[in-house]
């Protein structure tokens, strides 16, 4: 666990993301920063011709495209994963051409040198080269007052007003920032779940009911924080931008994939693995398995391990018959159910095209219905993990 996640930052890096790459690879980052400004001029011909020329010039300075690839795959694995981020942003901008256009669909590729670079890095890192939570949320952030490469604390990560995307898709806009922070908040406020979740499993193994109840209460507290962040942020997500990232970012060759999804967030994977949520709906199961394709292999291994260990949790709580432990467990399950219900309705309104703040875009009714059915089944699967009806404590 300590090799993958920390108590201060969870699965996010323990130092502020550092995009200072050696040599000409550093220019990929500059291209991504400048590219966002050119892209935001909303002229796809100008953008593609500018980026094509820049890529040609960069490759010429390197020698050959193969030299650029060689430099990239010589980097340590974590740095290769970081280099994927600006390349994926550039790939998205190339495909979309202009933020003013409707969401791009169908296969396309960046100019050959960068296409080969991103393809090679994807194979090397095992990360699908499209927008996903790893790219958007876990690796591409900066925090006011915190230089690149500095140690990060839980307090930094949860100070959302200081958090910004490292790269922008469309210049700098409030709606993109709202969209970004809505996802970021889930992972940053959810950090304590990893440590307390693992402690809960250890308590089950050691039959320590008092400490197990404490661990469950702390999981509940972390989930409550995430709940209130999500509740405030989702209504501000701009469905137009969401749709473009979902659709345009979802193309891999000829395959259409969902992109930014909660199933890629370690926080949700952890809770599902810890409580053994069943995913009885075939569509929900398929979506989760698909989401896992975007997550690095070493993380997949971690969540597989949690799944293998956690069957002990629910039977232990039930058989122990300790009121405090049962109550703490039950409250976690009920809050996860409420959280999923909240997500179902608020995110559903974004998917349908009209947020609660009144913005609208061309509807995608079937997408909405599929989402509501799958998440509805997931809400029931989660609620079914409860052990007993709690005695109401409110008057």
């Amino acid at each position, binding site marked *: 666990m300590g090799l993958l996640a920390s108590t201060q930052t969870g699965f996010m890096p323990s130092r502020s993301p550092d995009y200072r790459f050696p040599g000409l690879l550093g220019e990929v980052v500059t291209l991504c920063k400048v590219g966002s400004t050119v892209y935001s001029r909303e002229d796809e011909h100008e953008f593609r011709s500018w980026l094509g020329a820049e890529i040609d010039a960069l490759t010429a300075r390197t020698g050959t495209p193969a030299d650029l690839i060689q430099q990239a795959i010589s980097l340590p694995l974590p740095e290769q994963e970081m280099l994927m981020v600006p390349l994926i942003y550039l790939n998205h901008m190339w495909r979309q051409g202009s933020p003013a256009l409707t969401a791009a669909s169908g296969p396309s590729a960046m100019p050959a040198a960068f296409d080969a670079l991103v393809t090679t890095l994807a194979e090397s890192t095992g990360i699908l080269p499209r927008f996903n939570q790893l790219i958007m949320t876990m690796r591409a952030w900066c925090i006011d007052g915190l230089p690149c490469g500095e140690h990060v604390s839980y307090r930094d990560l949860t100070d959302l007003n200081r958090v910004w995307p490292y790269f922008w898709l469309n210049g700098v806009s409030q709606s993109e920032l709202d969209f970004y922070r809505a996802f970021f908040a889930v992972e940053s406020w959810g950090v304590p779940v990893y440590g307390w979740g693992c402690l809960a499993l250890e308590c089950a193994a050691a039959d320590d009911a008092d400490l197990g109840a404490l661990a469950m209460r702390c999981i509940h507290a972390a989930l*409550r924080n995430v*709940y209130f962040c999500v*509740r405030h942020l989702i*209504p501000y997500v701009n469905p137009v931008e969401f749709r473009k990232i979902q659709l345009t970012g979802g193309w891999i060759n000829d395959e259409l994939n969902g992109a930014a999804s909660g199933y890629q967030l370690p926080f949700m994977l952890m809770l599902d693995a810890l409580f053994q949520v069943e995913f009885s709906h075939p569509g929900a199961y398929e979506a989760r398995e698909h989401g896992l394709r975007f997550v690095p292999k070493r993380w997949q291994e971690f969540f597989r391990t949690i799944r293998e260990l956690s069957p002990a949790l629910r039977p232990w709580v039930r058989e122990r018959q300790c009121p405090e432990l049962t109550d703490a467990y039950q*409250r976690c399950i*009920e*809050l996860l159910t*409420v959280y999923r*219900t*909240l997500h*179902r*309705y*608020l995110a559903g309104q974004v998917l349908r095209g009209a947020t*609660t703040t009144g913005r609208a875009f061309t509807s995608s009714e079937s997408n909405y219905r599929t989402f509501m059915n799958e998440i509805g089944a997931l809400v029931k699967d989660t609620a079914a993990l409860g052990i007993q009806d*709690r005695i*109401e*404590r*409110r008057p």
Partner: protein
Amino acid sequence: MVLIQVGTKVVDVPPGSSLPQVCTEHPLPIVFGCRAGRCGSCLVQVLSGATNLCTPNLREARTLDVLDAEPDWRLACQCIAFGDVRLRYV
């Protein structure tokens, strides 16, 4: 008629009006989700007039409990107003 105030907005409605219905007819700043007391998206703080609202049903009480809600919080989707109330969206 009774007065319902949410933030700076005030509306005049007949006694016995349900808050979801009031919010459908008037642009009050409350976000509704499930409208069944299960998701908590419509949490409000009752600043005054708590006794002018119906008492929480079992479903609402349960959701408020699991959210560790403050004693003066309610789910607007489950509320019926019989007198003046002043609310703040949480």
